[in-house]
């Protein structure tokens, strides 16, 4: 790989993704660090960690069996389930919480953990599914001969367990950085304040950001402590080698358990993926005042008419962010995968923007780009693109790195021996090999950019998005129009994945 290419890509990444964090970190004053109330902070952090553990446990319990069954068994409708299971992960968390709270009166910390677990179990399911697909057939055949289905399950669980636990770590990281869901769910009954609440309150109550940045570091550290080892575990557990003669495992016949397990898994996915959408549709169609299809149609038309410009802006910015990330992620992800020395440090730096509270990323962008020499950029739509690319480029970089690690290094060596230069090797050999992970990763960036709100709040160019409009409209209650706009957002969030599932025969392979 050309050092120049890596340098250019790393510079782009540093500027867009790490620059805002550095700009913020430079603002921290010693006095604000000294003024941190450590005893109170420790209490909040402990409660936050408990919430994260609860969410991770639920994600693990729901996701691990589902992931294994999806990839390794003859579960009925596995293909459709695999697409549907993504829905809760892609829905904006507050929209998920709002729909769940419509069904139940359950409140408090446990309810929050359950919602966060439901929102993140698809991650565990997808990671476990990928890991289970990489178990050599001979291992599972040997287990089956030795002890039947139970032995297969035991052996394969032992093999995928590190990946399952690591992906539950990602669920933990998602849960501990959220505060809107916790706040919303504990509006009735005892309050359940968390650490992210404290950061947001510090930011809201202050006239400068130094205090909020100072308050953020324990949570950033906690997130990094969980996410970085989890990523390394995931990366180091390919379970097979190109050097050997890997044999793909055949699907396990569940026998008499096939239909009961299928029914159970379909119920889980239906309750977590379809119920929120059903709830929003019901509200858009009139809700408690009487559901009517005509009302649903009218609400959708009205929401589209009112929010058309916002939806267009959202789609434009998200598409821009995805395209911007593609070349940077290809170079950087490839370099990260091929460098053993820089793996831990590189992974930490790449993952950092995801571990920083989004509001700080937003303020950091203000501090970094709102200056005379970049005025034209700051005032244009490019600012929204840079903001979202900076926040979500790590997902694509890590996805490319994981996919690169699973490709045979010898192909690149052959190209090099045949006289291809680094750039030609990268774009002519590596990129086509990674076409699916690149497209899938770009889709992930697109989707996350589309549902971004917290970081976008402060950046003027990003204020015209559909989610921004939705959150303002939610303020005065959830009438038909609000539910319809939420449905439109869900539609565009889910559309790329749905198209992929329908028209592509290849696995997306976008997981970091």
């Amino acid at each position, binding site marked *: 790989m050309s050092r120049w290419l890596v340098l250019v890509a790393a510079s782009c990444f540093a500027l867009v993704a790490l620059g805002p964090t550095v700009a913020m970190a430079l603002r921290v004053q010693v006095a604000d660090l000294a003024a941190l109330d450590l005893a109170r902070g420790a209490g909040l952090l402990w409660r936050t960690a408990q919430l994260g553990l609860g969410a991770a446990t639920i994600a693990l319990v729901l996701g691990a069996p589902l992931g294994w069954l999806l990839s390794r068994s003859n579960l009925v409708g596995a293909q459709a389930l695999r697409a549907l299971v993504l829905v809760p992960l892609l829905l904006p968390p507050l929209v998920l919480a709002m729909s769940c709270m419509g069904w139940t009166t359950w409140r408090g910390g446990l309810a929050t953990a359950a919602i966060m677990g439901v929102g993140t179990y698809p991650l565990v399911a997808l990671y476990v599914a990928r890991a289970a697909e990489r178990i050599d057939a001979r291992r599972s055949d040997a287990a089956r001969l030795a002890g039947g289905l139970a032995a297969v399950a035991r052996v394969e669980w032992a093999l995928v367990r590190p990946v399952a636990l690591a992906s539950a770590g990602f669920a933990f990281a998602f849960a501990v950085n959220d505060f809107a869901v916790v706040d919303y769910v504990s509006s009735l009954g005892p309050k359940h304040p968390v650490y992210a609440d404290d950061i947001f309150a510090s930011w*809201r109550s202050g006239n400068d950001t130094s205090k909020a940045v100072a308050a953020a570091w324990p949570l950033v550290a906690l997130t990094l402590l969980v996410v970085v080892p989890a990523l390394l575990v995931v990366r180091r557990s390919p379970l097979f080698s190109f050097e050997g003669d890997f044999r793909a495992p055949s699907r396990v016949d569940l026998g008499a358990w096939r239909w009961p397990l299928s029914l159970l898994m379909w119920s889980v996915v239906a309750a977590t993926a379809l119920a929120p959408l059903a709830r929003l549709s019901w509200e858009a169609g009139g809700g408690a005042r009487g559901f009517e299809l005509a009302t649903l149609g009218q609400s959708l038309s009205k929401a589209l008419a009112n929010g058309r410009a916002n939806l267009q802006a959202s789609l434009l910015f998200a598409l*821009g962010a995805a395209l911007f990330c593609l070349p940077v992620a290809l170079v950087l992800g490839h370099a990260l995968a091929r460098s053993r020395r820089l793996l831990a440090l590189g992974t930490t730096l790449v993952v950092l923007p995801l571990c920083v509270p989004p509001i700080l990323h937003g303020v950091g962008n203000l501090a970094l780009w709102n*200056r005379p020499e970049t005025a034209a950029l700051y005032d244009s739509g490019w600012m929204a693109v840079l903001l979202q690319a900076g926040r979500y480029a790590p997902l694509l970089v890590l996805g490319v790195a994981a996919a690169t690690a699973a490709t045979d290094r010898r192909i690149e060596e052959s190209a090099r021996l045949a006289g291809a230069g680094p750039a030609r090797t990268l774009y002519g050999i590596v990129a086509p090999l990674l076409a699916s992970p690149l497209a899938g990763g770009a889709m992930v960036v697109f989707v996350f950019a589309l549902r971004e709100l917290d970081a976008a709040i402060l950046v003027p160019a990003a204020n015209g998005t559909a989610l921004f409009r939705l959150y303002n409209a939610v303020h005065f209650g959830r009438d038909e129009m609000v539910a319809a706009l939420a449905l439109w957002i869900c539609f565009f969030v889910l559309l790329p994945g749905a198209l992929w599932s329908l028209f592509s025969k290849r696995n997306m392979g976008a997981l970091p």
Partner: protein
Amino acid sequence: MRALHQRLAKLCAALGLALASCGSDPDLVVYCSLDQEFAEPLMREYQERTGLDIRVEYDVEANKNVGLALRVREEAARPRCDVFWSNEFAMVVALAEDGLLEAYDSPSAASLPPEMKDPGHRWHGFAARARVYIVNTNLVDPAEIDSWDDLLDPRHAGKVAMARPLAGTTLTHMAALHEVLAPGEARRFLESVERLSREGRLNLANGNAHVMRLVSEGQCAFGWTDTDDFHVALEKGAPVQAVYPDQGGIGTMLIPNTICIPASAPRKDAARRFVDWALSEEVEARLAASRSAQIPVRRGVARPAHVKGPGEFEPMRYDLRAVGLSIRARAAEFQELFLK
């Protein structure tokens, strides 16, 4: 492969042009934390009337006005904002005290009551919201409720709500109580609120609109909210009534919108003309007639029958500037109390 590259290049070029065109230079930039739903028609009308190209940037509800105030502060070195229209006053007072606002004595402000004006003309208050109890009449008799501390009444345990006093008008309200009540009384009230919340006997919602929803839906009997939220519930046909508390006591708190011009606003003339229009009696009347039912601070401004006006209830007497100056310290104090 080449065709694919060409298509990608064309897509990127089109996207680049579209993104660059998002940043055309307007005639006036207004940062507005009045709810988008209420402000949009007014802004559109002003745009049509003047023919100016106005860019209005709104805050999300979760930010409670802080996002835009922070932007005015962050952008001080390279200002973009010409007018900051805030839906309350505390953050604006802080901006004024830090020298970030321009003095402008608008002719439209002449008829405003003195307590609604900064002596240095750096900001002006108009069209207010009142802090009221929203009461579900199916669950409790509104006549039973009349004081700022009725939330603590054991008869209503578990059925009362307020927003956490960490932001927005609830923070401002609680800061004002510290100014007008006897020393220590407001603090004791908040300590009780926090204790009752922990015991599940008082619900801390994530905003005033949420309190309104909890009461409208009958999940709570009554709670603190703002009059604009109350009127939305009323308009939707919820069985609710507003109680203007402490009549004969400390009075009901009014929280005005404030408008100001950042010190280094790039388009000052356009900004001044906009401020003149926003502070006019006509706009105050429009805000009173809108769904937000804002209360005019001037006598004689036209308003619908359901919107109370000056003289129809006893307002809380407090110094906007003093409350605004205390807000940071109070926020930190409440944060320690409620986030632990």
